[in-house]
């Protein structure tokens, strides 16, 4: 029995207990749930996407059937913001740019009379600006002056410098950084992993996997100065995704569930009873919202790209 893989999670205790344990296959009939599933996360893009499918029993193949006949409406308060149109298998879209601070309601009326509903609010961006004066590898520094909503931070790095610095955008050579850390005072440590700290040279803060989540808080005065540390390549997009409450809960519960499946051989996943958040009434899935902004670092200068502004800020630093 190969033990090494799951000790990171369970420690030696479960090893000894499972030394005598046995696993056997059995036939078990469990009542499955076939429910309509709608996924729609509003963003600050001009096109909003939605999927509409059905769930399947746990012991069936994962061929999710689409629900073709439906009337899907996005409401802003009591007014119709738009209706989604089907553009492909299980895929719908709506040309609409959400308004910050606006409360939205999604209704999905199915052919059998079932109505799925959910609500969310487009979050206002947390104000975060570069504080590049104190930057030193592997840390980039930032100053946050508002924190009304949860914020998810992640870094995508390009493996070369082939980025249009006037209009920086991700390319097929961009990679999501696996290990990153922060000294933000409101960081949520739910996905910290001490064993990953050796993946980031000279990191001086606890390491989180892929994403850093910071909690809302009241900020006064000059704000919070914090760093994000990772293996910056020199061509990096540091993203700050401000999440609505629904998106935040959905993403956190999804990431938490993922932790149990990091290692194929880890029996900790057998014990996993985590639930992923859903706010869809009469169905499953998620209706939520987020707003992205990123800062692009190009070797010795950065471009602060605010998704709500037309022109980026550019600053040079040594």
């Amino acid at each position, binding site marked *: 029995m190969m*033990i090494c893989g799951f000790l*990171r*999670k369970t420690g030696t205790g479960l090893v000894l207990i499972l030394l005598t344990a046995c696993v*056997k*296959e059995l*036939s078990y009939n469990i009542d499955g749930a076939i429910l309509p599933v709608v996924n729609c996360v509003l963003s600050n893009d001009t096109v909003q996407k939605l999927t509409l499918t059905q769930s399947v029993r746990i*012991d069936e193949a994962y061929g999710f059937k689409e629900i073709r006949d439906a009337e899907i409406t996005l409401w802003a308060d009591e007014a119709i913001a738009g209706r989604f149109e089907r553009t492909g298998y299980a895929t719908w879209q709506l040309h609409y740019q959400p308004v910050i601070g606006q409360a939205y309601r999604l209704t999905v009326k199915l052919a059998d009379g079932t109505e799925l509903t959910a609500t969310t609010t487009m979050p206002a961006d947390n104000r975060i600006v570069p504080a590049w004066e104190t930057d030193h590898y592997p840390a980039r520094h930032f100053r946050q002056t508002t924190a009304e909503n949860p914020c998810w931070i992640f870094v995508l790095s390009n493996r070369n410098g082939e980025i249009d610095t006037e209009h920086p955008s991700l390319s097929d050579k961009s990679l*999501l950084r696996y290990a990153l850390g922060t000294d933000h005072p409101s960081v949520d*440590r739910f996905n910290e992993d001490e064993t990953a700290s050796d993946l980031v040279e000279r990191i001086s803060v606890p390491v989180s996997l892929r994403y850093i989540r910071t909690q809302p808080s009241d900020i006064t005065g000059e704000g919070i100065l914090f760093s994000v540390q990772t293996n910056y390549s020199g061509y990096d997009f540091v993203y700050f995704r401000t999440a609505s409450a629904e998106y935040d809960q959905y993403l956190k519960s999804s990431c938490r569930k993922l932790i149990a499946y990091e290692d194929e051989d880890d029996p900790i996943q057998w014990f996993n009873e985590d639930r992923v958040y859903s706010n869809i009434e009469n169905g*499953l899935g998620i209706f939520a919202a987020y707003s992205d902004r990123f800062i692009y670092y190009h070797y010795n200068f950065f471009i602060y790209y605010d998704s709500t502004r037309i022109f980026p800020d550019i600053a040079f630093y040594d």
Partner: protein
Amino acid sequence: MTVHVFSRILRFTIKHKRTFSLIFLCCLSSFYVEAQNDRPEQPAPDTARIVTLDSVVITGSRLRRNNTYQYTLNEIKPLVTVLGEQDVLRYIGTLPGVSQGMEGGLGFFVRGSNSGNNRFTLDDVPVYGNTHLFGLFSVFSPDIVENVNFFSGKLPASSGDFLSSLTQISSKNPDTESYHGNFSISPFLVGANLTGDLVKNKLSFQVAGRYSLLSQEIRLLESMLEMEGDIVPEMADLYVKLHYRPHANHTLNASGYYSNDYFKFENSNFSSPNFAENWGNKIFRLSWNWSLSDSLQLNTMAYYNRFFTVQKQQMFNNNVLDKEFRMQTALNEQALHSTLNYQMGNRKVAVGLQSMRREIYPASRKIYTGNRDTESNNVQSVNPPSSAVIITAFGDYEYKYKSVTASAGIRESYYRIHDYHSFDNNIHLALSIELSKKNGLELSYDRFSQFYHVLEGLPVGWNLDLMIPSDKQFQPEKAQQFYVGGFQTIQQFFLSLGAYYKNMKNLASYKNPANIFSIQDNWRDEVINGKGTSYGLEFRGERSGEDWNASLSYSLSKTDRLFKEINNGEKFPFKFDRRHILNFTGQIRTRQRQNGKQYFSLSSSFSSGHNITVPIAMYMGVEPPFWSWQLSNDLSIKEQENAMYRQLMSDVNGYSLPYYLRIDVGYGFLHTWKYFTSECTIGVFNVLNRQNPYLLFYDEGQWKQLSIFPLIPSIKWSLEF
């Protein structure tokens, strides 16, 4: 020492081959002795004269009561354990109202409470780390145990700070006249015990210790298990007691208890981190008993109690230690207790004061970078300790009038930690009505408070659960319990039947089950408060005899929990809400000789399966941000799958596993020589080799069941001198 608030009658039989002229009576209500004489009956003498008896049979009867059980090592003998070690706590699992957690473990859930709500004391000192080897057997060596009192209700006011059951373990007093001891060995443990007098009838001592042989045995098995590194489990405990009686009215006891479990996993090539887990107890106790008169006693005790758990990870860079992470949960207690016991006729009174200072380290984390030996260590620490003070005054009163015994106890506590303080009162009321000499009714009401929370992970009864202090955010846990029942004695049989109702509040639990495997130092964000209720029926039947004895317990109960952020705020079944629990234990003497005997033991355990949450469906999900912008070979297939899809879980604890059934058998050989007695016991745990389901999960397209213990044989040999 705790005053027992109910009366008992102890039945035992003693045969003496020698002639003697003394017949004794026992106090503590209705304890009687029946003396028998082998000679033909003589006519009543006209005048008093001395009669020499050849042999005397003294028979007493023990009348049990509901809610409370006293047992000795004799009662636990029929129980076969996983490791073959006699275990004084294992007996609790056979009593009514007790639901077991994981098979073979010592996690007990009494009348719907959590395992962390039970209190275990050794000579009135709480023992927080009460199990070895991740919950497989207890830290209490049978060599030091005199008797055990288990209370599931009708609790003494002198004990508090728990929400469920109280298990009082009393240690033996060292022999004041001669030396004796014993040695025992089994495949897992070697133990020894020595007691004797240093000054005859004045000063005596006892030393008892145990040490595990597991580390040596696992080394032998390493090649079979294909381990990449070394697993080193170590376990030991040591007990030392000095008993000093300078005067007939004064007794002084000093004792120390030490237990330690250490488990280490080391990689052979430093490619992966090394892990270690360590937990243990250190207890020092001083007590003074002063008999002011025949009816008045003053007991004063002071103790220092330390319990700790540490988890450590070491990471290496080029075979050199680069980082070390330590997570510690610890509890330090210092306490001073004093109790005045008064008994006169049909009245018993106990009043007392207790003061305690408790320091808890709730998941304190330290990170060391660099070589620990150099000055360049960078130590970061989080979660500093919390210090609490608890001052308690209590009183117990019992009054017996004819066939009615009434008792009342009150315990008033002042609790303070940081900027939070509270006054809590515990109340214990009981009424026992003897309808006849052989039957009666019993009613009780208990109100409890507990000033710390145990965040339970796996229900093994291990000591790795996080303990957090009660404070403003997580206030003291509280419970109320009502009980009504009856008892009947028929010759050597004792029967009891009762019903209980219990409600609990301010229970602390993790929001997410994922936390059961790791102690989070940000636990404040992961823990919530909730409530629980439990009610049920309990039946107990016992037969005590010289040739055979047996007991049967049955419970029918229902237990729920209600937490705002769990199960969408709806009530859900408690995980170990086992609807039916039926336990049987029995021992029969198969052979009796002048210098030995043999006995056969049988025990069975049947219960409804516990409750689990299972995935019932899959559905399309929203990938985490830029998830597909990773190198795919860095991801496991299951990780990728769970990023794209989501599992729909059943209602919390919405499914019950199939029933649990286990039968254990044992056989013992006892042989007595002039100076030695040897005993060899052979046991088979789970003789049916039934794969009792502990877990049901869906993996690789198939439902699977995890069972923990198959048929496990055991053997133990001991020598007593």
